[in-house]
């Protein structure tokens, strides 16, 4: 490696901006443009297979990360998070009733649904916007995605158990009992407050 190549390399490395051949020549004192150009092509060649490349963009030279390693600059870190109770309920309602609008989801759940709850389901890739309902206001309607079936190991939506099956499986009864107990001892407020908390957590 020649002294000039080293000097050009160090100068471009330390520079805050890409530099032209003329700027490099000026910075390096008595170097000739031709010699600088030669040095640049030798350097570009020697960096071609490295993690960093020396490239020319509009007559200006600079170092940049090799294109195939760009993913290293912006890394995604996945963190596993459990879906909130509200999120699970909304997902279930969409799965059982799709396509369904937000107003319909709310009327089934009996509580308002925070915007974040639907966003989470969209982000998770389990729910998609399936168009608009042809009624006044043209509300957006939601449906599940193939990823939803994938994730839950379902062949089709028909695999979801029906209400009668849920009851037969005892899934409805204990809840009924618990519900009766709640409504007998406490008031509607208690239930509403609990829901509100569940909604908040999903945000």
């Amino acid at each position, binding site marked *: 490696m020649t002294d000039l190549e080293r000097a050009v390399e160090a100068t471009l490395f330390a520079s805050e901006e890409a530099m032209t051949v003329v700027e490099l020549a000026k910075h390096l004192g008595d170097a000739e443009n031709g010699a600088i150009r030669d040095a640049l092509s030798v350097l570009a060649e020697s960096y071609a297979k490295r993690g960093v490349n020396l490239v020319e963009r509009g007559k200006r030279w600079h*170092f940049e990360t090799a294109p195939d390693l760009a993913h290293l600059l912006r890394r*995604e870190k996945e963190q596993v*998070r459990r879906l909130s109770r509200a*999120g699970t309920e909304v997902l279930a309602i969409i799965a059982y009733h799709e396509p369904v609008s937000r107003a319909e989801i709310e009327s089934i759940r009996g509580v308002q649904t925070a915007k974040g709850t639907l966003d989470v389901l969209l982000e998770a890739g389990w729910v998609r916007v399936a168009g608009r309902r042809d009624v006044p206001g043209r509300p957006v309607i939601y449906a599940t995605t193939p990823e939803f079936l994938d994730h*839950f190991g379902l062949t089709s939506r028909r695999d979801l158990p029906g209400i009668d099956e849920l009851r037969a499986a005892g899934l409805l009864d204990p*809840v009924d009992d618990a519900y009766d107990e709640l409504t007998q001892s406490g008031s509607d407020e208690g239930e509403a407050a609990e829901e509100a908390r569940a909604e908040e957590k999903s945000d």
Partner: protein
Amino acid sequence: MIEEGVLFQAPDQGVRDGWEGPAAAETDDSALYLELDGWEGPLDLLLDLARRQKVDLRSISILDLVDQYLIYIERAESMRLELAADYLVMAAWLAYLKSSLLLPKDEQEEPGPEELALRLQLRLARLGAMREAAARLMGRNRLGRDVFVRGAPEGLRIDRKNQWQCDWFDVVQAYSQVKARTAPAVHMVRDRPVMTLDSALDRVSSMLGVTLDWMTIEEFLPPHAEPRLRRSALASSFVAALELARLGKAELAQDEVFGTLRLRRIPA
């Protein structure tokens, strides 16, 4: 000026020549006086004088050093330069040290002058070592002055992405809960035997008409009523008694908290 001498010295030069003190370049004694401010205290001045002996610090002559220091201070005083107190304290101490060193040994007190001299020499050696080390450190290739990091790094960024988790059972259970919660609720109220306030009012006021004596509230209740009717009758009779007392038709008495409640008619 002093700092520059240190900062911009080439490293090897600094090491070879050692510390270039403020007066090191000056051989003319008179120049010394004018640069008194250049020293960081008497120890610094002593070190500089010691370096002029051009020998290893470990084999300097303490007596010569003391003489030089004392001469230096005297001349400064004769020129009426204002000397900081610590320079004078050092001068007095050195004068004492010199006289001790010259005295016969058996007249010495503890610690002996040789010990004091050795300790002074050790201190000077330590200061001298640090001064050289500082010069070598400052002479190194420093980041941002001699060597540089990349001028325009792209920067690394980490985007967090959520991986949501939920299973089949959760979905089915959530749905069943929604269904159960929002199913229309039907409430059945059973017919229960009660005594209304009106009938209690009639009953209590008519019974009060019988006598002027105190009667307990239990005496106003229907005698053979079943327990649930009796509880209802007690409640409505109590309210009736309060109402009659408010109208001035009866008076109430209770001797203690939760004690027996007694009623008596007030004659019209």
